[in-house]
């Protein structure tokens, strides 16, 4: 991948790291001069991806989550990677309101939010190996 800047972060799949992860990515994205709305969108999408890794990828067991972010021109690409149980049926998991844990009051909206708040969303997953979520957003230079 071509990029002019990049970062990588590894942290434990503990829920208190959700806010840590989205804050770090927001700080990294700041060099693109995003609007407040852009930053809120990125933070929300990262929060959803990290929460998914914690709850679904690792089933609340403690393991490592990796986040990478790349900047190229005005685009930020963010990858959220876990080595958890993976997703059997990605299409189904991405349906709005689908949740594999209906008893836990999950809204089933994680992927819908990521899709809506970012420009591009890709999900690569292999059962038993893990999941990589790749999200892109173009930031219009702030005038």
């Amino acid at each position, binding site marked *: 991948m071509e990029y002019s800047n990049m970062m990588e972060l590894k942290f434990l799949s503990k*829920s208190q790291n959700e806010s840590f992860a989205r804050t770090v990515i927001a700080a990294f994205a700041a060099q693109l001069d995003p609007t407040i709305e852009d930053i*809120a969108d990125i933070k929300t999408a990262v929060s959803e991806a990290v*929460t998914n890794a914690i709850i679904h990828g690792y089933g609340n067991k403690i393991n490592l989550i990796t986040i990478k972010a790349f900047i190229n021109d005005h685009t930020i690409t963010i990858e959220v990677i876990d080595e958890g149980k993976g997703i059997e049926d990605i299409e189904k998991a991405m349906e709005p309101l689908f949740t594999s844990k209906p008893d836990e009051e999950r809204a089933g909206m994680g992927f819908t939010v990521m899709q809506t708040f970012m420009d591009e969303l890709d999900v690569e997953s292999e059962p038993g190996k893990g999941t990589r979520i790749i999200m892109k957003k173009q930031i219009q230079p702030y005038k």
Partner: protein
Amino acid sequence: MDIKFTKKTNTLIVKFDGELDHHVADQLKEKIDKEYNTGFKNLIFDLKNVNFMDSSGIGVIIGRYKKVKEKNGKVVLVNANSQLNKIIEISGLMRIIKCYNSIEEALKSM
């Protein structure tokens, strides 16, 4: 997370500070349910001091809506900022829950 409860006859107003994500969701649910179950009908979420919310927050609101509906009560949201409004809109929550700009307006709707 700092939670404050205010009572207006049979309506419980919940106000909390900070960021509403998966990390605080369970604790918040538990505290709200405990208070609500002491004999309330309606529930108002005052979101004025919530500066971040993701779909875990939507889950908290939908979950409370189900419980309040069982008692024929209403759930309404007050003072959501633009980031919160965006996720509330995307979730379709507005089809079942109304949003107001002040507690007074919300109380009048009950």
